[in-house]
């Protein structure tokens, strides 16, 4: 298994994911720098470009990310699980969009779940993944809802851009501008059946605390409750809306002529923004620790 820093070095420098993030980052003050070099990250944290020191930090970071108890690797596998299922769901919806045009397979298209509730489940799973990864990296117990809620305000740099991307791509575009306000009601209607329909849940069920779907659903609702209050404030501070998100994306991706929902589907199927920024955030925390321990 490759270490966190190896994965950081392998991140793309320019592709659809990077362009989408660049577009969204124009909405966030402070902007976003696409960190794809471990040595660069280490020297910026350490404030020094001494090659021997950088090599020491790197060796220590690799030792830390190989130790399972430390949680850095598990945080990455959470982001991977979310990413895999996002692609699966996006592909499914893309297929449904295409199939809806062809008369013969129209009936098949009706079978694929495209409802708002499923989108709400998807979003809540992403928020849960964010919280679980946060607790893994910071060393808190898995259900520290309050700590997660209070530290959301502290998010800086890539985490802010990741949250903006999450709010735009998974709430405002597919669910409309009132997506965040509707989310609570939508989640209330989610039962075990809907939860099981979501491909994201199958990949993440083993990593959510609690036994059984009912307990997991409770965990998702509580996690989203913590996140929603913060996210609504964040979105209104930055003035995020579906329209603004599309304009920001058009500035880097080029003109888009479909609907908001199709754009969300397209982004789900062809970008991995969540995983990309997740690797960068975990790598930063890991380097901060390794620099302090050498």
């Amino acid at each position: 298994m490759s270490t966190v820093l190896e994965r950081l070095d392998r991140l793309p420098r320019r592709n659809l994911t990077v362009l989408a993030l660049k577009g969204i980052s124009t909405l966030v003050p402070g902007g976003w720098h696409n960190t794809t070099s471990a040595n660069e990250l280490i020297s910026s944290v350490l404030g020094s470009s001494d090659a021997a020191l950088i090599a020491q930090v790197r060796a220590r970071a690799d030792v830390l990310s190989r130790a399972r108890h430390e949680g850095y690797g598990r945080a990455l596998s959470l982001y991977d699980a979310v990413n895999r299922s996002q692609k699966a769901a996006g592909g499914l919806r893309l297929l449904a969009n295409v199939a809806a045009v062809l008369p013969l397979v129209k009936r098949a298209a009706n079978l694929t779940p495209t409802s708002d509730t499923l989108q709400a489940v998807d979003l809540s799973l992403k928020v849960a993944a964010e919280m679980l990864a946060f607790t893994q990296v910071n060393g808190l117990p898995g259900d520290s809802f309050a700590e997660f809620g209070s530290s959301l305000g502290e998010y800086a740099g890539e985490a802010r851009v990741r949250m903006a991307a999450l709010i735009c791509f998974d709430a405002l575009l597919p669910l409309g501008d009132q997506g965040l306000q509707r989310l609570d009601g939508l989640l209330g209607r989610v039962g075990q059946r809907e939860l099981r329909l979501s491909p994201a849940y199958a990949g993440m069920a083993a990593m959510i605390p609690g036994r059984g779907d009912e307990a997991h659903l409770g965990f998702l609702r509580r996690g989203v409750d913590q996140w929603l209050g913060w996210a609504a404030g964040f979105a209104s501070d930055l003035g995020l809306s579906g329209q603004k998100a599309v304009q920001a994306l058009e500035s880097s991706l080029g003109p888009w002529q479909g609907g908001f929902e199709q754009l969300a589907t397209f982004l789900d199927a062809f970008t991995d923004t969540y995983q990309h920024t997740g690797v960068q955030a975990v790598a930063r925390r890991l380097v901060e620790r390794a620099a302090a321990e050498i």
Partner: protein
Amino acid sequence: MSRMLRWGIGLLLMVSLLFAAFFLLPFRSWLPGGTVADVATAEVVNGSAFNRLFPSPEPGEQLVFTQEKRGFSEARLKQGQSIKALLAISDTTTAPEARSKFAASSQQLQGWPLVEQGNQASALLVAERFQVKVIGQGAGLDAEQRHDLIGAFDLEGLAALKPARAARAAKALAQGRLQPVQIPVPTATKEAAQSVPAVLEPAA
């Protein structure tokens, strides 16, 4: 049923059971490699013990804890939205090589050896075990400011800390109980664990 078939089915069952045991059951946590440098977690001081030893922030500044693990705790010193410095305490039990740089140190702070690492990092080794480090971020801090920050930690409290396992070993046994037999196991981690109490004698 022929004898060959019976043997075949038996072997197949055994192989599938072994396969299931190794790949499906959560045995991974029993295998080595779970902890940093394979040092048992009980031999490392938990990060929650370090948190209260951090300096209290000056007016206008904020101390935000970012990581708390076994043998490590880290906080960001913030002024408004910008990060001024990273403050950290780590237990060098899992990184003995980190101690070697202090052998060549010429500076001292409250009696403990102090070294500079690059332009923005200062480190102090307390009780030959705990490393206190300040790394300047953003605009950076000069050496004087970093040393002041290190001095603001509760260094005496830090020097008095002990890991859970060493403390338990030092406890006297009840009357009539025999001392457990110590079988000498020639591994590196075992030796390191036994040498710890000697290091942790009170500094004064």
